[in-house]
């Protein structure tokens, strides 16, 4: 039995192929202007890695912002449920999940089966999303992958007074003009974004077993800030960016098991 999950996000597309037991392959591509094409590209990529062709895959679930435009998916499921399932794959003990994506941020509560019990979402304001970090990377001319590491080298935490990404940009510019170190500005920005996410988390209440998913979970500076503010150790998957696609693949697998003949189930 082979199942696949595909997650078309606002900034990147992810795909995962699994069988009954484990992950067979995974792939990530940047999202281009046409979702249908990117879906195909990421799917080809993930199949190439494990030498599986589309006819070998029994069921495909699409999720994410662009999930309705995946032409070859059997079904589409919201990314909230998929993130909970994906986290449940690695950390069945997790009860609170923060998913930090390119353009939105979600706080999710789930049960021991990875079933969503409550969630809140910010997709209205760029403050507290990956877009904010991208903007600051552009402004300070630092590549995205170095941002988190650099912020950790700060010795002096600058307090940002703004949540709005537009205002924070102005604020960061005037700090730069004053000669404030880029590292300190970055640390301050990470602090501001973390506070924003935590206020989202508090609305669903945070439990000790807490996981972070989404591309921003790869930013060590962000993870450390969240851990420090929550006074909790975060559970982070080997590749947090594919959690949504993994969850979709798990949902696809569940569909196969439910629809298979009874003698096949065990």
């Amino acid at each position, binding site marked *: 039995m082979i199942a696949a999950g595909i997650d078309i996000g606002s900034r990147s597309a992810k795909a995962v192929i699994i069988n009954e037991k484990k992950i067979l392959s995974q792939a990530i591509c940047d999202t281009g202007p046409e979702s249908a094409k990117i879906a195909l590209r990421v799917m080809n990529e993930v199949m190439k890695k494990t030498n599986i062709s589309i006819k070998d895959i029994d069921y495909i679930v699409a999720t994410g912002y662009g999930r309705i435009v995946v032409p070859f998916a059997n079904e589409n499921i919201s990314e909230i449920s998929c993130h909970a399932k994906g986290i449940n794959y690695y950390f069945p003990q997790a009860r609170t999940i923060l998913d930090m994506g390119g353009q939105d941020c979600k706080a999710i509560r789930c049960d021991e089966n990875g079933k969503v019990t409550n969630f809140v979402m910010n997709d209205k*304001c760029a403050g507290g999303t990956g877009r904010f970090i991208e903007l600051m990377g552009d402004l300070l001319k630092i590549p995205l992958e170095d941002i988190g590491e650099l912020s950790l080298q700060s010795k002096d935490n600058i307090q940002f007074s703004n*949540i*709005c*990404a*537009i205002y924070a940009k102005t604020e960061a510019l005037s700090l730069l003009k004053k000669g404030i170190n880029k590292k300190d500005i970055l640390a301050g920005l990470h602090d501001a974004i973390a506070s924003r996410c935590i206020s989202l988390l508090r609305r669903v209440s945070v439990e000790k077993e807490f996981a972070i998913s989404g591309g921003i979970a790869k930013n060590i500076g962000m993870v450390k800030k969240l851990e420090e503010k929550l006074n909790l150790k975060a559970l982070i998957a080997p590749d947090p960016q594919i959690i949504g696609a993994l969850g979709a693949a798990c949902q696809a697998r569940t569909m196969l098991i439910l629809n298979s003949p009874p003698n096949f189930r065990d």
Partner: protein
Amino acid sequence: MIVAGIDIGSIASKIVILDDKKILHQSVINENEDNINLPDIVFDRELDNIGLSRSDIKYIIATGINRESLSFADRKKSTSLCLAKGAYYLFPSARLVIDIGAETATVVGIGDKGVLKDSAVNDKCAAGAGSFLLLLVKLLQMPLERLSEISLEANGRIEFTNTCVVFIEQEIISQIHRDPPTPMSDIVAGIYESLATRIAGLAKRVGIKEDVVICGGVAKNRGFVKIFKEVIGVKLIIPESPEILPALGAALIAQREISK
């Protein structure tokens, strides 16, 4: 007795000098340099222009979002209070003042005799302030003067699905790159409606009661004011110099302080 009110905003500073409730001088200074001595230099220069010196000014009140940065003020007063006083002085019939600045929108309810009744402020989100227009200047490469007119030529109005200015920026870009491209006038009109809706929401929190005064730099934008009037559904009074109301209010309070 000569007094001054100085309003330090996020982009511009405004100065009003009063002599016994008569406006001697008013000016808007668009100098946004990170020079902490700038207010000193500018203030002396302005005084010099009208043949006065620092010693002639008996009392100075600072207001505006960056009022704390003004070192030489005798006192500091909130923008809301100064707005109420300034608007009541110019328009005694005013009961609501809507001030749309670059990074802050302030709505003030005025009671009888010009007392400040209630206020609501947005200084958290660029989608509800003038910075929205600065985005358009940059993105559409259109000067503010043209922006003020272009929406009047619109045949349609784009409805934007996002709230955040960061996300709307992408929406605008995709409108520009349509085939055929969406007319600039329709894009601008859509942005004005989006901003108008947010400001009207802020105004409703205070309660809309006529007469309504609209001020701040954005009040000079004719296209926006037209759409805002339509959204809020009441007549709007626009002062001759819409930017100086808080500074005027500050100067009026200064006047009262020394006559005590």
